[in-house]
């Protein structure tokens, strides 16, 4: 039995709503931290192979700044906040007031790493607490871990839990961009929420929708 085969379009809509609420609060927090208007795109929920997910996020070799959190509690999940390097540079420059900072020149300043970690922490705790309020589930997060490296090497951590169950991943993706960006279609960051296989039923149940109707 594969849990993915049992998911209906109504349930996918619920997952979309979860992304909407979580990332909406996180985007607001990011706006306040950076004092910039940040727009959030309509979340997408997709069922993809591992390779498709990595291609969708920008390609295995694309270098990104990322924050990873393990969500623990009643619905364990993996969460990533992923920034393209140019955007990561911009945010960190502003947070640590150093216009010369760049993730292109390792080793990185300790301040910059801890700023990225703090950024991830604030975004994630907003995401998770709104998710917890919405579902009524007890959710809390691990200390965020920061990594600047190839996207494929990073995101594949999110597949470990579910890979014993499936060759497919259900990912709740919310893209962000700066409101005054010249190119309104450009994406400046992503939240990826990848629930563990057994968490879907728990989330649906908490919202009053059974998994196998």
């Amino acid at each position, binding site marked *: 039995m594969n849990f993915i085969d049992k998911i209906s379009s109504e349930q996918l809509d619920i997952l979309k709503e979860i992304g909407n609420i979580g990332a909406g609060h996180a985007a607001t927090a990011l706006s306040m931290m950076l004092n910039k208007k940040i727009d959030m795109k309509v979340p997408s929920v997709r069922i993809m192979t591992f390779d498709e997910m990595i291609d969708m996020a920008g390609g295995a070799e694309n270098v990104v700044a990322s924050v990873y959190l393990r969500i623990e509690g009643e619905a364990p999940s993996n969460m990533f906040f992923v920034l393209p390097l140019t955007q990561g540079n911009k945010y960190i420059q502003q947070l640590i007031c150093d216009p010369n900072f760049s993730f292109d020149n390792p080793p990185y300043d300790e301040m910059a790493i801890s700023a990225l970690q703090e950024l991830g922490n604030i975004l994630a705790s907003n995401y998770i607490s709104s998710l917890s309020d919405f579902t009524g589930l007890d959710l809390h997060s691990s200390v965020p871990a920061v990594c600047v490296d190839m996207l494929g090497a990073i995101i594949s*951590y999110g597949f*470990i839990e579910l890979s*014993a169950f499936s060759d497919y991943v259900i990912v709740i993706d919310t893209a962000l961009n700066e409101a005054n960006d010249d190119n309104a279609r450009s994406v400046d960051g992503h939240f990826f929420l990848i629930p563990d296989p057994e968490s879907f039923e728990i989330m649906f149940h908490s919202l009053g929708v059974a998994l196998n109707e």
Partner: protein
Amino acid sequence: MNNSQQIVKVGIADMNIVKAPDAIRTSGLGSCVGVVIYDSLQSIAGLVHVMLPDSSLSRNDPINLAKYADTGIKELVSIMIKHGARKLSLKAKIAGGAQMFQFSSGNELMRIGPRNVEAVKKQLSTLHIALMGEDVGGNSGRTIEFDPKTGVLQIRTVNKGISYL
């Protein structure tokens, strides 16, 4: 120079084989391990992108053989032999198994890289395949490419550039 060289790409939990002059590659190895098995005399090489240490972890049926160290290496060897490689001349090079994120808590999930490496080595030794080189562990993502003609494994990381094995 050979302009007709193709580079065959292998995805996550996937495997494939090539014959010279073609090369084979896989991108963005983190905790996963890229296992190259080759027969230099026949200029044939296979690559499997292993995600998990052991097929007994599987809760999925039918299982994807390429996902696990034990079944992936076994299957790759049998495919290579079908395509003309000789069992006794098979050798291996491996890369990957990094620990990308440093967590203070001793989360078992975070140790998946080293566990994958251990499982790969165990399976290679079970099948009596000599391990000729390895670039494993650490905390960097790797992209690897193998040329069956030269037997050289090229490894690229973001911070250290390109190295050869």
